[in-house]
């Protein structure tokens, strides 16, 4: 109850600050950009904003990582200058976007690891069907023949499997479950979404860090965690069998490779999940930032385009240091071409 009131109050506060950097000096112009959206991008936005504003001291950028859903809502209501999201609008919601035409600009790829905690086992290989059955609690022992079949030669202990998953609604859950519906359509029955109907005997953690914490502190645990949090917690993660049959570990290079073997629509909507590329890590998630095609304010419009341009070029080099992956060159070119269409008065 209280939480809801606080949320409403905060929303009000955000609306209040929207028209911040109104007073602009003559040339170039100073501007304050307010943005909100995906928590997935938070670490990248922080480093990108820091180095961008260091070079452009007259521009300030605020990124509120309140989740993709909040980003889409804020962008539709025009309370932010741009927003970032892990998933595009549903067709039914497009009519609610008040500012007219807008562009999706892809800027980040990131692997979602399947992290585990199993004494004596450092390397683990999993195929999609086995992964699906583990997370549905149909496989409950680590020495199950199905797991052994994926790991020829390894000795697996007789430990019970503890499944860790998110307690909060999340784009990470959405991408993980979407991957399972694509890669193991027969085995996976829980469908996909920001929250799904997890079996009652799974452990829930808040945020990527909450799941990482459960995996780290529980023997026999397995959970899906983004690469940066998995690395920060020092977790071991599994190599997953991709479409071409290779077991691939979650790395920055394997995530960028996933961006190569995919079909990209004209509006730059794509999914890097379950990519066909031979070197691709199969659970690679993608994220976009959204910008209105017709900017209404000169100083802000110029600043938004400059920042997006930075994210797509020099900013891409910062991704690796926060354990995310740059987008492939072909996609980068398309994104820059799209950005060039933005009109600034």
């Amino acid at each position: 109850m209280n939480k809801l009131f606080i949320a409403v109050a905060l929303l009000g506060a955000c609306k209040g600050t929207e028209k911040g950097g109104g007073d602009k000096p003559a040339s170039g112009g100073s501007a304050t950009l307010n943005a909100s959206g995906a928590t997935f991008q938070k670490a990248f936005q922080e480093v990108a904003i820091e180095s961008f504003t260091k070079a452009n001291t007259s521009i300030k950028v605020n990124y509120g990582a309140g989740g993709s859903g909040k980003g889409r809502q804020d962008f539709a209501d025009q309370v932010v200058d741009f927003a970032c999201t892990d998933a595009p609008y549903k067709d039914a919601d497009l009519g609610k976007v008040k500012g007219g035409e807008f562009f999706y600009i892809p800027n980040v790829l990131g692997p979602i690891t399947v992290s585990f905690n199993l004494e004596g086992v450092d390397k683990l290989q999993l195929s999609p069907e086995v992964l699906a059955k583990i997370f549905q609690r149909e496989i409950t022992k680590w020495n199950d023949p199905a797991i052994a079949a994926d790991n020829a030669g390894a000795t697996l202990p007789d430990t019970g499997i503890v499944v860790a998953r998110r307690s909060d609604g999340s784009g990470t859950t959405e991408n993980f479950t979407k991957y399972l519906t694509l890669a193991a359509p027969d085995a996976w029955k829980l469908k996909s979404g920001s929250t799904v109907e997890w079996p009652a005997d799974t452990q829930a953690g808040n945020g990527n860090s909450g799941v990482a914490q459960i995996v780290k502190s529980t023997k026999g645990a397995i959970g899906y965690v983004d690469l940066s949090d998995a690395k920060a917690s020092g977790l071991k993660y599994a190599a997953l069998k991709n479409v071409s049959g290779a077991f691939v570990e979650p790395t920055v290079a394997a995530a960028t490779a996933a961006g190569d073997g995919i079909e990209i629509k004209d509006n730059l909507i794509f999914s890097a999940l379950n990519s066909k590329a031979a070197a691709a890590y199969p659970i690679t998630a993608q994220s976009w930032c959204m910008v209105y095609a017709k900017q209404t304010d000169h100083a802000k419009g110029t600043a938004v385009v400059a920042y997006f341009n930075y994210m797509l070029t020099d900013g891409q080099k910062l991704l690796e240091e926060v354990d995310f992956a740059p987008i492939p060159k072909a996609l980068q070119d398309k994104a820059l071409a799209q950005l060039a269409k933005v009109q600034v008065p």
Partner: protein
Amino acid sequence: MQLDLRGRSAYGDRAFRWIAYGAGALVLLILGLIALVMADRARPVIGEMGIDFFSSKRWSAPDGLYGALPFIWGTLYTAAIAVAISVPVSLGVALFVTQVAPRWLKKPMVYLIDLLAVVPSVVFGLWGVLVLSHQFGLGRSFLTAGIILGIMITPIITSLSREVIETTPASEKEAALALGATRWEMIRASVLPHSKGGLVGAVMLGLGRAMGETIAAALVIGSALGQVTLNAFASGNSMPAVIANEWGEADDLHKSALIALAVTLFVITIAVNLIATAIVQRSMKRSRGKTP
């Protein structure tokens, strides 16, 4: 001169009356608007699910199925555990402070208990995760949540009970003592019967707080789905915890379902609070009538 003065004070009276009316009406207006807007936004899910919203155990956003029964159960069950833990402690402390404690101890104890009431709930929640779940190995469960909520509502119940108990007229207590009653017999014969209504009210206010608590419950209850069980060691979920966890990424029908949860919680807590206020008021009227 006098006419002038009267005129001015009449203006003052009128202005005061309108401000007072306005303030009173504003509160009702806000409450009414909240109820109205929330009920309106809860309509889609009720239209979709019908009565199943309150009786189904399945909550699956991808399937578009929203059954709130496990969360309603979790809210009521944890609140019941909280009250069961808190009531004996609270009453004991209240009786100790009012009837047993030496004068020099009374003031600091009252002060400490009131201080406990202002500790932010997230602190209790984190303490619950670190100490109860991990160190004591209770895990995330109905019991862990119930214990945390019990600790949180203890100060409220204690300080309300203390005030109710202190309204017992000295004459009644002295009468009992004069008849040769021990201290416990005096408490049983004159203090408890006198303050029964007020104590029930205090407990119900605590119950209302326990049901509405969000963060502490969300941290320790375990967020497990479909759990309608008396097993206190099982993980479960409560209405406010679900709302806090799932709101951010929810789409339209899902949001409507979460708002419907909020309305359900709103109705239950308001009902509990109204009953509590009625009981407290009745008992206060009665005790005032008896006081010489």
